[in-house]
């Protein structure tokens, strides 16, 4: 298999942890709440899913448990940020640290253990194609993740719920005047973000690299946060960004396997360096951020 077809075949799977987490955060941010705790929520979801799958609970149960655990953690954040109106940045960092701590604590006895991954489901015909065939042979979570992406895109763009979420983020006072429960909708959006971060962690730990190692999320939650900015809060661009980062992380592996004479630390830094560069390039366009940005992002809302 050539390096290119290896990257094409694997980039969707590599993109999944970024994509799921970033989509969840996108919804939360669209409602006006900035949750910096994604890394910790992913870490918690990862360990919970790993433990369930390891004890033969199956992947479905693992994902459900991970989603619920991370959603619960995100509700702690929501209560701090929305309930008692604490500083959102500090509250996000706090539950991020808490999540990473809990992940290390629960995962201690599972260090270096493995679980079975998931089989690939192929699209007949298409998966036989040269070069790009691998793209059509993915595990069930990737297919479901792509469906979920479509559903989130359609919901935000066309449904009344999506309109209300965006209105709450754009102008909470007007939304409240129209009779919407701003705080309630934000709670829901944050919990959805937690659920998705849990799925993202579960995918990373039980499907993508089904082996437990403390700190295995390795900054992917932070990159997911950056992706939302890259995408200027648009669903389609989140997908593009996530796949790009999936491809970058696979290019690392392909380069190492191909014996490219670049040192491994530099390769490992590549996603972080790319993040900094892209973040600079996109943010420099202030007009773009202003037009697409969420007006009330991070601002507390109270009577």
């Amino acid at each position, binding site marked *: 298999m050539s390096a290119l077809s290896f990257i094409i075949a694997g980039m969707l799977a590599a993109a999944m942890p970024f994509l799921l987490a970033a989509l969840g955060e996108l919804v939360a941010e669209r409602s006006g709440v900035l949750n*910096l705790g994604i890394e*910790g929520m992913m870490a918690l979801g990862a360990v919970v899913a790993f433990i369930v799958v390891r004890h033969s609970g199956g992947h479905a149960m693992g994902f459900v448990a991970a989603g619920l655990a991370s959603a619960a953690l995100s509700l*702690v954040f929501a*209560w*701090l940020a929305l309930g*008692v*109106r*604490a*500083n959102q*940045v*500090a*509250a996000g*960092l*706090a*539950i*991020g*640290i*808490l*999540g*990473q*701590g*809990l*992940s*290390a*604590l629960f995962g*201690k006895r599972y260090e270096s253990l493995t679980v079975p991954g998931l089989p690939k489901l192929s699209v007949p015909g298409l998966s036989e194609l040269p070069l790009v065939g691998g793209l059509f042979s993915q595990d069930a979570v990737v297919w479901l993740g792509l469906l979920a992406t479509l559903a989130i895109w359609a919901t935000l763009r066309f449904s009344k719920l999506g309109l209300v979420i965006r209105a709450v983020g754009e102008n909470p006072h007007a939304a409240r005047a129209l009779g919407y429960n701003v705080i309630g909708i934000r709670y829901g959006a944050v919990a959805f973000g937690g659920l998705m971060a849990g799925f993202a962690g579960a995918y990373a730990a039980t499907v993508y690299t089904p082996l437990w190692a*403390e700190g295995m999320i*390795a*900054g992917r939650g*932070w990159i997911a*946060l*950056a992706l939302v*900015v890259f995408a200027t809060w648009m669903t389609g661009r989140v997908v593009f960004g996530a796949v790009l980062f999936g491809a970058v992380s696979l290019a690392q592996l392909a380069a190492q396997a191909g014996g490219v004479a670049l*040192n491994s*630390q*530099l390769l*490992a*830094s590549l996603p*972080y*360096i790319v*993040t*900094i560069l892209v*973040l*600079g*390039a996109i*943010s*420099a366009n*202030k007009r773009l*951020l202003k037009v697409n940005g969420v007006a009330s992002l991070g601002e507390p809302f*109270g009577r």
Partner: protein
Amino acid sequence: MGIRMIRRTTASRRMAVLAPMGALLLAIVLNFLLYIVMGNDPGAVFYALLLEPFVSWSSFSEVLLKMTPLLLIAQGLAVGFRAKVINIGAEGQFILGAIFASAIPVWFPQATGGWIWPLMLLLGGMGGALWAALPAFWRVRLNASEILVTLMMSLIAAQLLAYLLVGPWKDPMGFNFPQTVMFQWDAMVPTLIPGTRVNVALILALLWSALAYVYMQKSFQGYQLVVGGLAPHATAYAGFSEGRAVWLSLLIGGFAAGLAGAAEVAGPMGQLQRSISSGYGYAAIIVAYLGGLHPVGILFSSLFMAALYIGGDNAMVSAGLPVAAVRVFQGSLLCCYLAAIVLVRYRLVRDGHEVPA
């Protein structure tokens, strides 16, 4: 019947002192419930984690040693946090400080003289400031979030450290361990209290705190930074640019973290190695918030967090408490604190009750 939050006309000073204590109590209760569920003996953990760090001089001196980097970093970060410049990359700035400081003993292992350790500390501070300068540039010139860029810079710093330790800076006689040579005597910060590992860096951290107090509470520039954090438009109108606040905040925070990193390699470590930071850069964020972003509050919160580190080590040895439990404690403590300080600015009133003016 619900409970409503009513904003106080002035922040309650009584609550400003009581709330952190209440938060601490709540965090202790929650975490000990967790220890009981995990099957640890709560009595043994309580003694090892919360009392033992203070009962003997030898363990308390270790607390002071751990307090030094936390205090240095947190005072630096708090300056930025008050100006709403959120530098969460102190971990990377700490690592760069350690690397810069190590350059002298690694390249000149034979050098002698009393000038070596002060120069190392200075280089360390500059290394940290340099690592924070890029996020500052990215924020001021490119409008990029310093939160994300500083964090990414930390992840890169960890890789840079790993590269140096397996590559050019590896001790050739070190049995292939990822660490540098042990530093020469003159590259070590002098010990302050004989018989302990507490060194002169503690004095520097206390001086730095005094400086932070004068700067933030008494100087005009500190005042501008604080007001800029609260009302950016007002300060912009008064001629104080946001860009200057970003540069000042990040350079001060980076310098402090770098200094702490230098003091760590030139102090308790005595060489550059993988585990130079036990997450000080992240813990210092908690220290800064727990101290109410106030120089005096940070003195107390850094002392407590340092004790928690030492107590965590004790509890691991004597009560089998996993190391990660300390991080859980730190995270939950910050959550409890954030919930508790709401009482400083708000009063809780039951629905239906009259609100006295």
